[in-house]
């Protein structure tokens, strides 16, 4: 029996043996990677609900899965299922309905939406009660198991745990737009601790519903450049004006290196390091000096045990908001110094939009594809470079490059910052 493989900090090495993805570009890695590296956009006009009168009427919706009448939880679950199925197929681990490890799920908060609220209201047509008293009367009068089941917070994880037979308590996590990276971090930590030999980590989000769109719009976070939709998301451009809401899911099978080797699994890459840091400056804005973002990036690189100049591609958070892209540049510059000038960086969000809770997982899947294929996807719509953000953003067309070590960033409301370092074995 040989000694277990350890990293340079003496911890178990965590590898990826399967990945899966769904975005507005389509279902599965093949379709996504083909379109992503061809610079295609998945952003389109919203048809799911009437948008007349709204300032933003575009999004990266996922329309390729049939979930019956749309509800955020139904699509959230369906996308996660599809991504996980693809990842499990690739990893060929466990058996059907029996995955030998825990589930870590990044998922948006679940809540009743207007169609459901309106339905309850109308069940009591003619009732004198008003407001929530009337909705509660409807809830008392007849069973609403389907609503209850769908809009429980535990619901998405429960569906996945049942379908894939994951072990133990299914864990749902939210760190806003960093959630997908956090789900991966939870898996890495569990394997390093020896609590598990494998973990199923998923990020999924289908928040393109009317109220969520209006909320982000009221925070002035969204691009209003509706026409044509595919030109709206323009990370690092001088004329960027906000992010584009989008849907998607990414799934990764993490395993201890030795377990993966022992069963002869193909290894797609290593999750070398995870870093996080919370910001206390403001609920939606980061410290002007970037200390929290810098902290997250630095912590990830330190955790990975690599030097900053070993990073040879950055999969940016790159939301296309004026604030994020500037702060991300300043923070990267602070950590990578002159090495940043020589390092290609691109934002998948230029094509797929911002998949919110799923982004960290979706973009980790794409980062691993860059490592496997030696191709860096482009940042599209880069027509008007921001002179304050001088970086090699791989404009418009993808590029062949030897990519061994990737830094992937995810930042979110509530001062959430998480970064991952993914590498070739």
């Amino acid at each position: 029996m040989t000694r277990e493989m350890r990293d340079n900090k003496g911890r178990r090495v965590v590898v990826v043996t399967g990945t899966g993805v769904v975005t507005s570009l389509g279902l599965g890695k093949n379709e996504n990677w083909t379109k992503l590296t061809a610079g295609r956009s998945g952003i389109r006009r919203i048809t799911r609900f009437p948008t007349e009168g709204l300032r933003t009427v575009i999004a990266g919706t996922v329309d390729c899965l049939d979930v019956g009448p749309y509800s955020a939880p139904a699509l959230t679950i369906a996308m996660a299922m599809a991504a996980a199925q693809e990842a499990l197929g690739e990893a060929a681990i466990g058996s059907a309905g029996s995955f030998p490890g825990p589930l870590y799920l990044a998922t948006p908060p679940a809540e009743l939406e207007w169609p459901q609220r309106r339905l309850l209201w109308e069940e009591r047509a003619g009732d004198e009660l008003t407001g929530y008293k009337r909705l509660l009367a409807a809830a008392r009068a007849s069973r609403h198991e389907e609503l209850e089941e769908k809009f429980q917070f535990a619901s998405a994880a429960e569906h996945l745990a049942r379908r894939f037979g994951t072990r133990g308590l299914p864990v749902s996590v939210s760190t806003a737009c960093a959630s997908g990276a956090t789900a991966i971090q939870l898996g890495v930590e569990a394997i390093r601790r020896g609590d598990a030999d494998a973990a199923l980590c998923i990020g999924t989000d289908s928040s393109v519903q009317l109220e969520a769109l209006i909320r982000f719009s009221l925070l002035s976070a969204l691009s209003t450049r509706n026409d044509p939709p595919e030109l709206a998301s323009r990370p690092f451009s001088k004329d960027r004006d906000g992010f584009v809401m989008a849907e998607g899911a990414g799934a990764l099978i993490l395993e201890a290196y030795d377990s993966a080797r022992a069963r002869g699994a193909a290894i797609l890459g290593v999750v070398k390091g995870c870093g996080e840091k919370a910001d206390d400056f403001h609920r939606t804005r980061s410290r002007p000096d970037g200390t929290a973002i810098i902290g997250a990036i630095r912590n990830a690189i330190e955790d990975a045990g690599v030097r900053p100049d070993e990073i040879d591609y950055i999969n940016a958070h790159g939301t296309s908001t004026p604030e994020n892209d500037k702060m991300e540049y300043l923070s990267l510059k602070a950590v990578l110094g002159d090495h940043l000038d020589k390092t290609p960086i691109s934002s998948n969000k230029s094509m797929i939009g911002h998949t919110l809770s799923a982004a960290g997982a979706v973009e980790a899947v794409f980062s691993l594809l860059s490592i496997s294929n030696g191709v860096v996807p482009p940042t599209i719509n880069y027509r008007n470079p921001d002179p304050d953000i001088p970086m090699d953003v791989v404009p418009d067309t993808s590029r062949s490059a030897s990519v061994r070590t990737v830094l992937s960033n995810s930042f979110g409301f509530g001062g959430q910052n998480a970064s991952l370092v993914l590498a070739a074995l």
Partner: protein
Amino acid sequence: MRETPRDVWVTGIGLVSSLGEGVEAHAALLAPAAEPAPVLDEAAFAPYVVHPLAPIDLSKQIPKKSDQRQMEGWQRIGVYAAGLALTDAGIAGKPELLDRTGLVVAAGSGERDTSVDRTVLEKLDGREDTGLLAKEILPSALRPTLFLAQLSNLLAGNISVVHNVTGSSRTFMGEEMAGLAAAENAVRRIVAGQGELFLVGGSLNSEREDLLLGYELGRNLWRGPFRPVWARRQAGGGFVPGSVGAFLVLEARAHAEARGARPYARIAGVVSDRSNRATGEARASGLRLFQSLCGALPRAQLPVLSGASGVEPVTGEERGFLDDLRAEGFDPVVRAYGSLLGHGVEAHLATGLALAALAVSRGGFLPPSGGLDAEHRLDGSPGRVLVTSFGHWRGEGLALVEAAGGGEAR
């Protein structure tokens, strides 16, 4: 159990509930002669009963009015309790410690403005045009700060902003399972050396019609008049939501000793699982967890702070689990703390852990609340307390809280 430098010590407690605020107000519930009675509001949300939050002066922990305005009730309660815990642990206002304190929060849905929702529903009433919401109603009805009250991770976000906790920040969701995942995450990270210092907990604002609606859709709520948790079964069961903010500072023993912090207790372990909840499964899941966590304990009286919600059939399953402990040779002395404080859902386990730590450090225990034979008298004072968490829908978990050896207990 053997003690190690990586023991998980409880070095700070922040509690605010229907029965008051702070360590002393809640330790008083455990005093030998205490006869605490639940504080209830049976009128405001009739037929539902809730335990309303005791009056608190928010500015003591959230000094800026602008911060208070940026939050809704559940966030204010949680931020307040988090501040109490940090102060109690001697961390508040110490940037060097706050900068590496990991924040682990259990949260549910954020809070909606129910009067806005009411206005919207009335405007929609009887009108067929599906474009109305977008065109006319929602853009003017909603306001930006509301969104930030609705995001689950914005309790953690507000704790970072108000109290400057910035080491890391993770929010777990999933009703009672959120509380379990949060506690288990912090404890396992400490034991494995993945962190030294954590602020763990959650909050619930029971005085919310939108919260009640979510749970009533599944017929999970108890409809008054009030009865203790174990006495609801004959009438179909149900939970009574209790407003609560519960945070604990958990710390590696060596880290606490180095800074001279004294422990209330140590958390010997947190274990969890998920069963499909067919008849008997939650009970069996509980027993398996018990055997892994407590199998080596002496067969004797075992104080149990039960997190039972009163929702059936799972509360019946927990009764069966407690019977199984007797069959294993233990004598569980049970208190369903939800009978006194209400059910705190995501924050319920943290509340139980805080009460257990106080019970161990002060040598007291809650008085019986009735409705269950196992709520009999405890001989002597509790050296350890088992805390149970059987989720009203999913998830089973147990935590064992013991007297902290070595350090001078508080």
